């Protein structure tokens, strides 16, 4: 049933040009390695095959109908006798699509292992996470997964699978390069691109009878324990190597566990910022990607986290919300936005408004003044767990001073027109405080006391 998609086949003499040269017959690939990116639809495939070459000129045909291979990325390297094997050129013959012809000048005859590499589109992976909060919400179990999908048109069996975390800069979509009529286009032309090579009908055909095959492949590949993923840094990227090999047939996806950390200390953080979140308080779950939090070995790739909470002794769960987060470097703080809540309530009220310190110009028009506003902030934690609340206040001017009054006194200046108050609230408690904001206008800006 397997479609022969990437075979290196013998060229059946279609042109007299090739008549005098023997074509190399190729066995199937020995090994294949896939390095899959998630910041772009791009996979680096590398396969090894053993060619049987004869001394002199050899022609080798490589075809890739119905796949999404970028022909401009094709490269062949001899793994032994590299100095005696000269890859003369790679020709994309006229009026044939999805076919390349290597002209190889060989100083040796016999078996030569070669490595063929290329980019393909259609394989992808993404990370996603499940978090389970302890009943007291002080710790969370965090399980990371990766899901690898193959829509490349090619079945990859027993492939060493590697995933790249990081953002690569690419100029052209691999899928577009794969669909071009001519690999490098025509002189003076951008495009045109042909429609996708695979029709719907063909896709349906392919789906049938493949389930068994995929299952069998899975059984064979299944070790007694979940596979481990090795993580290492390279340049600006992280490389995840999945233990052993994977068989991912075209159209299939596979979920693999990436890590499982039992007790990450977390902070229940609630934020209020009128300009950003409106009047609701928004819940965040905060922790740090470091060793104190049982993490910190590698960065955490961005993805969606679904958060559950254990609600009883039978370990029943309640769903708390979900949050997409971005890539988290080692030692970076994480704040996961779980959405607006109603069980922590904040009210910010203007309690008093006055003006003062008027200045008049030579015509006796108003030239400067102060505006003094007293705000009262009241925060209620109706939950049975302690919470931290961060309140940001933005002013529409950088000419301001702030005085506190009432229960709470400290604030942090975030930038020239923003301050932040931080409160810790025990379970089922209430706090309130006031502050007096003076803003300076016109001539009074020059007289403003140092802030």
């Amino acid at each position, binding site marked *: 049933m397997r479609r022969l998609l990437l075979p290196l086949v013998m060229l059946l003499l279609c042109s007299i040009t090739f008549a005098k040269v023997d074509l190399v017959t190729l066995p199937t690939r020995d090994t294949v390695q896939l390095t899959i990116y998630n910041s772009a639809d791009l996979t*680096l495939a590398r396969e090894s095959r053993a060619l049987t070459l004869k001394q002199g000129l050899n022609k080798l045909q490589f075809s890739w109908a119905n796949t999404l291979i970028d022909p401009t990325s094709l490269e062949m390297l001899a793994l032994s006798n590299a100095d005696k094997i000269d890859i003369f050129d790679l020709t994309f013959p*006229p009026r044939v699509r999805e076919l390349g012809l290597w002209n190889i000048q060989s100083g040796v005859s016999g078996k030569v292992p070669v490595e063929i590499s290329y980019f393909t589109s259609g394989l992808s992976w993404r990370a996603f996470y499940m978090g389970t909060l302890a009943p007291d919400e002080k710790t969370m179990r965090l399980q990371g997964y990766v899901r690898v999908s193959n829509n490349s048109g090619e079945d990859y069996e027993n492939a060493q699978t590697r995933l790249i975390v990081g*953002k*690569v*800069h690419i100029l052209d979509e691999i899928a577009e390069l794969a669909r071009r009529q001519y690999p490098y286009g025509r002189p003076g032309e951008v495009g045109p691109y042909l429609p996708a090579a695979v029709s719907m009908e063909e896709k349906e055909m392919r789906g049938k009878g493949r389930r068994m095959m995929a299952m069998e492949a899975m059984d064979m590949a299944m070790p007694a324990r979940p596979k481990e993923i090795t993580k290492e840094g*390279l340049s*600006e990227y992280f490389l995840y190597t999945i233990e052993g090999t994977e068989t991912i047939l075209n159209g299939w996806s596979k979920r693999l566990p990436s890590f499982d950390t039992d007790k990450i200390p977390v902070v229940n953080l609630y934020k209020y910022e009128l300009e950003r979140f409106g009047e609701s308080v928004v819940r965040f779950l905060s922790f740090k990607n470091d060793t104190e939090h049982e993490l910190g070995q590698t960065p955490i790739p961005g993805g969606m986290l679904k958060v559950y909470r254990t609600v009883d002794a039978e370990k029943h769960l309640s769903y708390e919300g979900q949050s997409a987060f971005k*890539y988290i470097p080692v030692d970076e703080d994480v704040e996961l936005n779980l959405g607006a809540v109603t069980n922590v309530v904040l009210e910010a009220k203007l309690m008093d408004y006055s003006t003062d310190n008027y200045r008049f110009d030579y015509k006796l028009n108003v030239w400067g003044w102060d505006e003094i506003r007293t705000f009262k902030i009241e925060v209620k934690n109706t939950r049975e767990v302690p919470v931290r609340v961060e309140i940001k206040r933005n002013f529409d001017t950088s000419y301001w001073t702030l005085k506190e009054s009432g229960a709470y006194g400290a604030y942090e200046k975030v*930038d*020239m027109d923003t301050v932040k108050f931080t409160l810790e609230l025990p379970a089922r408690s209430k706090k309130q405080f006031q502050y007096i904001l003076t803003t300076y206008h016109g001539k009074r800006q020059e007289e403003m006391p140092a802030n």
Partner: protein
Amino acid sequence: MTSKSNFKLMGWLLTASLVWTSSAQARIKLVALPERADTIIRLDNPQATLIEEERVLTLQQGMNQVDFSWKGVSIDVDSIRLKVLDHPEKVTLLNVSYPPNEAALVWQISSAQAWEETVRISYLLSNIDRLITYKAVADKKETQLDLKSFLILRNFSGEDFEQAKVLIDYGEAFDRGIQHEETKQLLFMKEPKVPITKVWTFDARKLPWDPEKMPERNIGIPVSYRIVNDQKSNLGKFALWSGKARIFQDDGHESTIFLGEDVTGMVPVGEKTELYIGDSRDIVITQRKMRETQINIRRNTKNQMVLYDMDEIITAKIENFKDSPAVLTVIEYIPGEWKMIDCNMDYEKEDANTLKFEITLPARTDDGPAAINLEMQYHRLNIRP
């Protein structure tokens, strides 16, 4: 006009010397001419491709008319030249005429004797060109790379070249045939161990200042490799042509990963190029304006403000989450007339309004990321309301 019916071709003119009006004047039609001898496809000018081909004309003593016609190809008529090779003193091109509504021209040639004369015909042919691509593999430490450059020959001219010398402006010629609608990829340069410098750049005008305000996406700091086209870099023999470069890295497991791709401009000898490969998410910069206050206000007799200065403070918190140190270039802009009051780091003025900082960031330690603060206070001077 005789021409070949063959779909592509240049109906090359051909010999067939026709007897024409007078016996003193012979007319040659170059149609399926004697085999083309040496053909050169010269690609040193990226705008146009020059073809030179040698042919043998059978000339009669006296006046000869040689027709040169083509079909299915696009030749710049004004570019066609004829050079006599065997008897340049005795064979003279008198004039060139263009028949109406034909892709052709007629050479009138005077010959001192009847003989076989080799001529070189050159012309600019459209829709045949070359691209340059680069493929590089960096070492694991990112200090050097193995650089390869490929010539991509694209022939959509309508003409098949069975055998030709393909020339670019340096290096050896390739002896290759190339068919119409064929594309060929040829390796023409291979230079191992080209030193590179890895650079990270934060440009305050291009990147957002406060990553916290964009919780849904990472603000990557662009990372580039700098390559100098000189002898120290094992290069410097010729200008590197503009082209797409794909950069890989040795992963230490006898394989590579793809780092990214970029297009380099033309790099003359002695110059450098920077190839943008991707974004670092392990260097985080949070830049904020902490003060923006009018000072030194000057007024007219009516007490109206006519001139003021602006007192501004910018702080940038730079965190390195990487295991290794990095040299970060920070580009800041201050518009108009200005004076630096206080700055905790050295900078270079790129121009009147652009400041360039080169900041060495230590590696992350067990205690956390390496954090450095850049602080500058400056006055923007003499601003009118």
